[in-house]
C-alpha cells in the first residue's frame, strides 16, 4: 500500500498547514478490487442526449445505455483520504512519519473489514497561531509541499 499527499487538498486552516493524505492499495492488499475499478471514458463533448436545466440526463435509460457503450479504462482510487494539520515548522521527515503512521492505522482498519468512520476516533486539536505572520508562513509551507508532493510517497 502507498500513501501520497494529494496537492489539491492542501490548504491553510486554523493557523496550521492542512494536508490531505491519500492511501492506495497494491494488488496484493486486502480488498484491492473495491477501489481498482473501471470507468467509462467520457468524450469531451459529454452526453449527447437531452438534459434538464441542471445538466442532468432526462432519459435515464438512454443515458445508461450510452455509458455502457463507452470504452472503459482501469483506475486505482484511494481506499481512504485523511487530513492532518501541521505547523509551518514541521520537517519533511516528520510529515513522512505522519504518513507512515496514518497509513498503518487506516490500512489496519480497512484490512479487518471495519468501518473507518466508526472505528477511527478524531482527536481534538488546539487552533494554531492566527497572526497574519504565521498564516503567511503556513501559506508558503503549503505551497512548498504542494509543489514537491513527489517527494512524499510512503510505501508499506
Amino acid at each position, binding site marked *: 500500500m502507498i500513501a501520497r499527499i*494529494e*496537492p*489539491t*487538498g*492542501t*490548504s*491553510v*486552516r*486554523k*493557523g496550521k498547514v492542512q494536508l*490531505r493524505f491519500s492511501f492506495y492499495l497494491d494488488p496484493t492488499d486486502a480488498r484491492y478490487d*473495491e*477501489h481498482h*475499478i*473501471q*470507468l467509462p471514458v*467520457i468524450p469531451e463533448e459529454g452526453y449527447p442526449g437531452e438534459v434538464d436545466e*441542471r*445538466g*442532468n*440526463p432526462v432519459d*435515464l435509460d438512454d*443515458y*445508461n445505455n450510452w455509458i455502457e457503450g463507452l470504452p472503459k479504462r482501469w*483506475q486505482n*482510487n*484511494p481506499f*481512504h*483520504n*485523511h*487530513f*492532518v494539520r501541521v505547523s509551518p515548522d514541521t520537517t519533511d521527515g516528520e510529515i513522512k512519519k505522519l504518513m507512515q503512521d496514518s497509513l498503518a492505522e*487506516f490500512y489496519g482498519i480497512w484490512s479487518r473489514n471495519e468501518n*473507518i*468512520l466508526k472505528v*477511527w476516533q*478524531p482527536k*481534538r*486539536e*488546539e*487552533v494554531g497561531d*492566527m497572526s497574519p505572520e504565521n*498564516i503567511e508562513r503556513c*501559506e508558503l509551507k*503549503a*505551497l512548498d509541499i*504542494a*509543489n514537491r508532493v513527489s517527494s512524499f510517497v510512503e510505501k508499506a
Partner: protein
Amino acid sequence: MAVIDIGAAAEDRNSTGAIATFTMVGKANPADDTGTITSVEIWMETEAADVRVGTFSHAGSEVLSTRDYEDLGTVAAGSKQTFSDLDMDVSTGDYIGIQSSSGAIEMESEGGSGYWYKNGDYIPCTSQTFSVAAVQTMSLYGEGATEAPPAGQPYSARVQGVQGMRTWGGI
C-alpha cells in the same frame, strides 16, 4: 460524546447529478445533534475538482446559510471516497451540501427527499434563496461528534499558484 450523522449514504445509485457550476444541498437526513462533522463520504459519477463541502441551516422558504465548510480537493469517481479528520461545525437540523468546478455526483432519480440547488459558488453563503429538486438523493454523507470544537476563530485560505487549486480569502 454522541455520534452525529447528516446526509444520505454514499453509494452507487441509478442516476447522476452535475455539480459543476452548481451549489447543491441535500435535504435527506438533517443533522441529529450539534457538534462537529469530522468525516465525509462521497460517491462521484465523474471526477470532481475543487470540491468543497459545507453544513447549511435552513431558515424556511428555501433560504439557506452556510454554517461551516471544508475544502477536499479533487475527488475520484467510481468508488466511495472517504475523508477523515475534517472540522465542520454543525447544528441540529443542518443539511450537508457540495460544490465543485467539475464533475457529477451519484444520485437516485426518485423516491428521495430532494435537494436544494443554486447556480454558482455558494459555499459559503448567507441567506440565499435556492431552488428545489423534489425527489432525488445525492450520495453525500457526514459523521461527527457532539464534543465542542476548540476555542479560536476558524480561518481557511487556499494556496495560490498550484494548478487545479482555487484561491480565496479567509472567513
